[in-house]
């Protein structure tokens, strides 16, 4: 079989299917779900094919329309994109399966358009990952953001205001990114990432380049939800429909983090990012503050989705902290944390969605006796919570371990302390929920026998797959690092 067209197929299939869905939805309301799942599964297969190709032959360059780079748009896939792309496809397929019951209950009658927009969001995320062109990234960034705005807006009664806030702030972020692209284009006359990285070499002294780097950091910082640019994030994650939260929370900020890594280490090289500017030093302190801030605010939340959203802010801090440490361990820790956090947050938000589906509540103090009504879901929650805290053998332990190693070999003992404190704070806010789920009886509860009321299978299986994934990733982490993540470390980082 010819594998050379896979890089375009992985984007094209979901895009075309999403255009067809509204038409199909006119005569059949059930089919769009299957079409969306099939399209995502097809992308997953294509992504696995690409991954296999990259592992065997090294990076792939695909010329769109046959135009040679730097004039044409090039899709460039190396270990880092292939890895995150497989991750995004995998989580997408399972969250898509998960979403059907949830969205039918929360937003009856909207399924057709929901799956259309969800696939567009997926297209945007995958597009950002495959492309090797700066402006193309902007276009896909906006495709994914616009779909995310639409998806968040169909959430609960406060969703519209949260969405508006997200639209305004997100557009500022995208515009700053575009400005950065414009400045680079002014200085070099190129938009291709690899062309830029060579053209920029003699220009690192220039103020234009420095300003464009700062624009990129601010713009992508907004899109990632990096403290103090995170203000859109809690509202958007909390008020979105639960299926959308489970989709957006694990994936969108991770893909933005990927673009950040790509810009800072491929477009600009390591020497520029670390030596010409003190920006990495500043960013690692910002990330440290983000870790502590997110954890502390998460403790004070009574709404579990809000708590998870603030916990996401602190996890983004981990990812940024690792890459800004400037050594191999830190970078591996960051990329591993992108993977682990996607699984953990996907699992946690999916569990919250299942709880909302059965019990209609997201208030933590009303979770009493949940382990009796939803035993498997509660078990999955315990696994994900342990992983968030970072206990072995769950996946979360290994990424934190590498981050700590990175901080030690960078000689930044403060950050070791920050990671430790944040793990303790994570333990505080997750054990609070675990306590309600497993030990506290429902407030004002009677002694009636509690019936088992597990989430429907189409929701339960994705949750269990993700929870099993957390454990499996923990056991396989050494292998994953050897095979893939070790290759993603950019040249120049020792």
């Amino acid at each position, binding site marked *: 079989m010819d594998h050379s067209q896979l890089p375009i197929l992985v984007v094209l299939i979901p895009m075309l299917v999403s255009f067809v869905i509204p038409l199909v939805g006119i005569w059949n309301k059930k089919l769009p779900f299957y079409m969306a799942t099939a399209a995502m599964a097809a992308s997953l297969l294509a992504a696995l094919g690409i991954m296999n190709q990259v592992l065997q032959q090294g990076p792939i360059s695909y010329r769109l329309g046959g135009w040679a780079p730097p004039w044409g748009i090039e899709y460039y896939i190396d270990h880092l994109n292939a890895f995150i792309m497989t991750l995004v496809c995998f989580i997408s397929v399972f969250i898509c399966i998960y979403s059907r019951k949830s969205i039918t209950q929360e937003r009856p009658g909207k399924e057709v358009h929901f799956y259309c927009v969800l696939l567009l969001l997926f297209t945007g995320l995958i597009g950002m990952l495959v492309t090797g062109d700066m*402006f193309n990234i*902007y*276009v896909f960034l*906006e495709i994914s953001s*616009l779909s995310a*705005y*639409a998806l968040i*807006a169909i959430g609960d*009664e*406060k969703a*519209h*205001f949260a*969405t*508006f806030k997200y*639209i*305004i702030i997100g*557009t*500022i972020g*995208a*515009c700053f990114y*575009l*400005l950065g692209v*414009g400045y680079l*284009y*002014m200085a070099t006359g190129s938009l291709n990432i690899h062309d830029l990285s060579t053209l920029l070499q003699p220009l690192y002294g220039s103020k234009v380049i420095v300003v464009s780097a700062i624009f990129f950091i601010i713009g992508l910082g907004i899109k990632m939800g990096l403290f103090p640019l995170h203000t859109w994030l809690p509202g958007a994650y909390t008020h979105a429909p639960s299926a959308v939260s489970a989709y957006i929370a694990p994936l969108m900020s991770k893909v933005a983090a990927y673009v950040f890594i790509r810009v800072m280490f491929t477009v600009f090289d390591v020497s520029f990012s670390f030596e010409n500017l003190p920006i990495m030093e500043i960013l690692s302190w910002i990330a440290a503050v983000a870790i502590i801030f997110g954890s502390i605010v998460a403790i004070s939340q009574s709404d579990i989705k809000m708590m998870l959203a603030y916990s996401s802010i602190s996890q983004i801090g981990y990812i940024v902290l690792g890459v800004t440490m400037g050594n191999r361990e830190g970078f591996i820790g960051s990329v591993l944390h992108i993977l682990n956090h996607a699984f953990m947050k996907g699992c946690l938000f999916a569990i919250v969605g299942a709880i909302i589906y059965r019990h209609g509540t997201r208030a933590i103090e009303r979770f009493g006796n949940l382990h009796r009504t939803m035993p498997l879901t509660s078990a999955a929650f315990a696994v994900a919570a342990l992983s968030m805290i970072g206990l072995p053998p769950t996946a979360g332990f290994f990424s934190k371990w590498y981050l700590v190693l990175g901080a030690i070999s960078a000689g930044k003992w403060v950050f070791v302390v920050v990671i430790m404190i944040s793990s303790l704070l994570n333990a505080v806010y997750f054990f609070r929920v675990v306590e309600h789920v497993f030990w506290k009886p429902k407030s004002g509860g009677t002694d009636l026998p509690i019936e088992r009321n597990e989430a429907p299978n189409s929701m339960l299986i994705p949750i269990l797959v993700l929870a099993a994934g957390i454990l499996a990733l923990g056991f396989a982490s050494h292998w994953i690092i050897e095979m893939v993540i070790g290759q993603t470390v950019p040249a120049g980082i020792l």
Partner: protein
Amino acid sequence: MEFLSGHANYFVYIMLMMIGLYGMMAKKNLVKKLVGMNIFQWSLILFFVSIGAKEGGTIPIVEGAHGHGAEIVIQASHYVNPLPHVLMLTAIVVGVGTTGVALAVLLNLYKKYKTLDEDEIIGKL
């Protein structure tokens, strides 16, 4: 003075951008915030279009060169750079899309709260 006139396009775009940012931050009416966002986006589009322009440059079409353009020597400095303009076509579409989504959200907000004033909506949340 020369600095000012030589960089007029940058001053215009930065001014527009700041007006947009001010609108987004200071205005209480959500539609005005949206207008601020649009000004912000359009300032970028002006910036991109202006960096493609050249003094004395003409439109980038080589007359009579179709099929045998190789014989004609082309001086790139005689033609404006079309690439930023083309990029901005996409950015304009993105801007229209964003405005559309934002207006749809505002419509729903207005239906629910009967006001578009930020403080009043926050009070009713």
